[in-house]
């Protein structure tokens, strides 16, 4: 029986740990990498190493960043009185590309999902509450339009409302079940414009 070399096995195992990559895709990618030139393969390895060395989290908004505070948190031309709350860094990037938003971000690092054992303490919610003690006028909740994102939005609105801060939820211009990350900028701009107060 054919048995692959231990190093090949190791690479396939590592790739299979990535989200959305199953056994089959992992071995397809492995063989693709094997066929690459040494330089090409090194570029990938280097890029992974560099990203881990240089990129960390902004300790204000918890977005991924090469500096702390990040370029958004340290840019005082932005509107410091509005915070847009998103699930992940990729969602923050998508919102930032959308026209009509010039405020700050707060990245929760996921959404509430008791089924996966994720409760409020597993997200950057306390950190958000601390930020709200400064002069914040509006919190826009831009979690995904699925059950988990909506539950997170409702949870946050119940926490924030008593602080007399305006809480809005971006409109469901988004197709149901879709991820914010994949929505195009025009759709997001419209969703932002049509945001509604809780």
């Amino acid at each position: 029986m054919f048995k692959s070399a231990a190093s090949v096995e190791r690479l396939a195992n590592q790739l299979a740990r990535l989200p959305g990559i199953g056994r089959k895709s992992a071995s397809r990618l492995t063989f693709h990498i094997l066929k690459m030139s040494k330089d090409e393969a090194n570029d990938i390895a280097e890029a992974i190493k560099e990203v881990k060395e240089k990129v960390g989290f902004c300790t204000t908004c918890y977005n991924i960043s090469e500096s702390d505070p990040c370029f958004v948190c340290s840019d005082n031309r932005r509107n410091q009185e509005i915070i847009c709350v998103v699930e992940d860094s990729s969602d923050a990037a998508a919102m930032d590309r959308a026209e009509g938003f010039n405020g700050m971000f707060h990245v929760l690092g996921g959404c509430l999902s008791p089924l996966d054992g994720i409760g409020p303490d597993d997200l950057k919610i306390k950190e958000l509450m601390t930020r709200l003690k400064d002069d914040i006028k509006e919190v826009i909740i831009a979690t995904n339009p699925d059950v988990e994102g909506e539950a997170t939005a409702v949870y946050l609105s119940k926490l924030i409302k008593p602080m007399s801060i305006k809480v809005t939820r971006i409109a469901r211009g988004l197709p149901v079940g879709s991820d914010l990350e994949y929505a195009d900028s025009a759709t997001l701009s419209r969703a932002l414009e049509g945001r509604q107060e809780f």
Partner: protein
Amino acid sequence: MFASAFFIYTMHLDSLKLTSFRNFETLQLTPSAGINVLHGKNGSGKSNLLEAIFVLCLGRSQRGNKDGDIIKNEQDSYRVEGTMHDGDRSIEIAVAVMRRGRKQITINGVKSKALELYERFSVVAAGPEDSEILAGPPSVRRLFLNLYISQQSTKYLENITKYSRILSQKNAALKENIEFDSYNYLLAETGAKIIIARQLFLKTLNKSAGSFYSKFSNNGELDIKYKPSALEEIEFEVDESRIKEQFEARLNEVKEQEMILKTSIVGPHRDEIEFDINSFPARTHGSQGEWRSAAIALKLSVYELLKEKRGFSPILLLDEIFAELDESRSAAVIDSFNDLGQLFLTTALEPPARLAQKALYLNIDSGQVEVVR
């Protein structure tokens, strides 16, 4: 007179292929667009064949069972494939389930959601197990509502799916002692839409099922009452925001109880329907004959309702219906068919003569089907 305006050839099943589906190893079938009579001994697989047609139409069984039960014993997967004829188009459908894996639905070779089947097709199944709608546990009645309201409105199907996801999250939160107010808010929001849809459906059903039942039972009376678990009394006029408010208030009332029980005790997942026959609750006072007549009255009403809503005749699956009814009731049932589309009926005996005339006869024996005439 009877045969002329009897059929409208709209949506129908052109061909069917089963693989490892219940007692069938492999099976191929080319039914008629009109009436198909499935003949065969007890246990030959007649009911299973009807189930397969239902699965092909909506991607799930009409019975409340798990997909794993459908896979032929000792096999790892089942597959139902077929061609549906819709006007001048042919649509290829395949539903496949692996024992450890997800259900795969394809329409014309493209991976699809079950919702897309509900959007395109419609099917009504009636059989001996329908007495359970009147006499069985509440979950049977809710399954009945969900299967047939979803065929009227895919919005309902979306809401049911969403509601059950919210419910699972809430129950997990209850088990892990996580704050669950936000789930109550969402349950009330989605639940209100479900309650209204059920209320409207049952109101319409009550009228037509009542008149069918009266024909099948020498002027007996059938009355259907919706008992939503979230509300004390559902008003005639339905107002979504009021129902949502009442439901949320009710959820607040039971909050502590739910924390102790660690499960959700109020909402559409606990709804009931009360059937009264001649003013007595059918479940406790009804006879088997009354249950059967009421069940067939319900299913024929649903059939008529769907036909009107969808603008075409659903595929109708009648499992041993006439064996259960005496001659005059059978005649009343046959008389009530109009604009019949494609029909599959099973019988261990001869079918009623009036239906037999135009039918394609199929004989089932040891997992094989043979066209008889």
